[in-house]
């Protein structure tokens, strides 16, 4: 083992972290702001990949434009879902978990009916099919793209939540719904927007994962458990998810470097369970009142 390889592993860990983070970002917002456990998040990611595929295949849209377009499309789906189902379940957190699992079944099978169960091909510009070499370290340019998009999304979410009027409203609703209502904040609208935003971010993740891996109706299922763990470990806050993803991404890369991938996963699952035993509220707990 030499230092260069370890450094490479660390850089890769950053990339893995960004993948986990972008997968978990939308979930964080939805969970953090509205307290909804959205089991259909993986399917939102899948929808993002399929919308990019559709836009590219039928309309010939360039890949980089597909990313924001997927944000809009999946955001709209999230909006419709929130209006049609989720809003009736806000005070029943376990039921939202179950209902959204039903939604995930429907979305997965629906996509399968429309597009078939064979994998689809999502093309990215040729320039992304290369790698950037920095002497001893090297990383694929597409991973850099993911890293950048993720950073951009996190920054955007941060600005939105901490620098705008909407953000103030969201945080007010998070703290105390009744109190916020008395200040004239329409909490129903806030929930609706955050849900749509979270879904849209999943769409972005999907259009990235479609290029990195594969476009399949079942592709979302593999992300959802991991994404949840990031959110729960982080305590449901933006900063928490960023840190949780960063640490687990690096850990996974390092464990995989020294042992193998499967074992790395096992260790991470167990570490998270142990961690939450001692800090059930997660890394950075929400300030919102629990009772």
């Amino acid at each position: 083992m030499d230092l260069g390889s370890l450094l490479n592993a660390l850089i890769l860990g950053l990339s893995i972290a960004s993948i986990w983070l972008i997968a978990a970002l939308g979930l964080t917002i939805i969970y953090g702001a509205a307290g909804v456990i959205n089991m259909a998040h993986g399917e939102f990611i899948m929808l993002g990949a399929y919308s990019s595929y559709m836009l590219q295949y039928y309309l010939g849209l360039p890949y980089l434009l597909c990313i924001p377009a997927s944000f809009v499309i999946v955001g709209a789906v999230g909006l419709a879902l929130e209006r049609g189902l989720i809003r009736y379940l806000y005070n029943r957190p376990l039921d939202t978990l179950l209902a959204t699992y039903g939604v995930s079944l429907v979305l997965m099978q629906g996509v399968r009916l429309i597009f078939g169960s064979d994998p689809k091909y999502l093309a990215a510009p040729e320039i992304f099919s290369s790698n950037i070499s920095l002497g001893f370290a090297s990383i694929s340019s597409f991973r850099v793209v993911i890293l950048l998009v993720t950073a951009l999304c996190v920054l955007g979410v941060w600005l939105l939540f901490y620098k705008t009027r909407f953000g103030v409203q969201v945080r007010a609703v998070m703290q105390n719904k009744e109190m916020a209502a008395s200040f004239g904040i329409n909490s129903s609208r806030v929930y609706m927007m955050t849900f749509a935003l979270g879904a849209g971010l999943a769409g972005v993740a999907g259009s990235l994962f479609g290029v990195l891996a594969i476009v399949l109706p079942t592709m979302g299922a593999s992300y959802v458990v991991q994404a949840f763990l990031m959110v729960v470990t982080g305590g449901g806050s933006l900063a928490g998810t960023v840190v949780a993803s960063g640490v687990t991404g690096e850990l996974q890369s390092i464990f995989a470097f020294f042992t193998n991938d499967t074992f790395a996963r096992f260790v991470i699952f167990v570490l998270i369970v142990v961690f939450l035993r001692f800090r059930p509220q997660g890394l950075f707990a929400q300030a919102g009142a629990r009772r």
Partner: protein
Amino acid sequence: MGNLYHNKTAQWLVYTAFFLGLAVIPSFVSDDFLLNQLATYGVYGMLALSISLCWGFGGILNLGQGIAFGLGAYGMAMTMQMQSQTESNPIPPFMLNNSLDQLPWFWEPFSNTAAGLILSIAVPTLFCAIFGGVMFRARVSGPFFAIMTLAMLSAFYTIILDRQPYTGGVNGITPPSPLQLGGFEIDPYSSTAYWIVLAILVTATVVAKLITQSSFGLVTQAIRDDAERVRFLGYSVAGYETAIYTISGAIAAFAGCCLVMLVQYVSPAQLDVGFSLSMVIWAAIGGRLSLLGAMCGAFLIQGAQSYLGDAFLATWLLILGGFFIVVVRFLPNGLASLLESALGLLATKPKTPAAETNGDAKPLPAE
């Protein structure tokens, strides 16, 4: 509120009728396949029962029931596998293929059928007691606990898949012959196997039902309602939660053993996240607040999957998912609550309040 639905005696009568109905089925059914299939449904019923007990009565949503179920199933498969090993051939073939020339230590006890069967139940039960104890003491509850069980399930799934020399990896374990008990071979297609499963199901149901009617059951229902408040009444909430989670896990472990007895096969798929979620779906659709309702939910969904599934090939999951959403949205207490309301309408004059007890259910048997 003289709702017959809440009448304890009526509940016991319906339970008795339901199981008597199931018990006589082999006398008119000579179809081996149907018998084996019904026995398998019985296993699913057991799982739904365990979820109903834990979630419906304890308020603990467990998305990782596959852990107890899977560990039980692996224990049984190991026991059955060792039954077919002989002096001259002491090691399961899949281990030879993975360059093991000695039986791993944790396989040794399974050479003895009795020890193997005991371990099949004891190990998952102990796991639940420890995991539950640790989690509930840390006051992990509600959705957080659900996610934790999901993480634990994924961890087990991953490690069983990875430790191929000891577990058979993704191919699992296929014991070549049926379970031998006391010199008899239990043919998985015989009425004997059916009755064994039924006997375990009846026992589990009676135990679960008695638990819900005991003081313990009342406290768990109180915890489901408001755990925080119950602490101030002097009950150790963690203790109660751990206990009901563990009992529910033990039932799931029995179900795992029964399944392997019936299908002679185990694989990591028993610990698949999707399977554990379907257990929750059965209980939710049938009615998590009713043990019998949850069981009927399992029969209903699995029956529909077997018999309607092929007719609606492509749309089956769509129908299931949609149905599930509708139930969660409009009937949070499942189909059993329909019956509850129906009987509530029938009820005329309030009876003596003594007749009312817990909110258990009494749906009609599926047949």
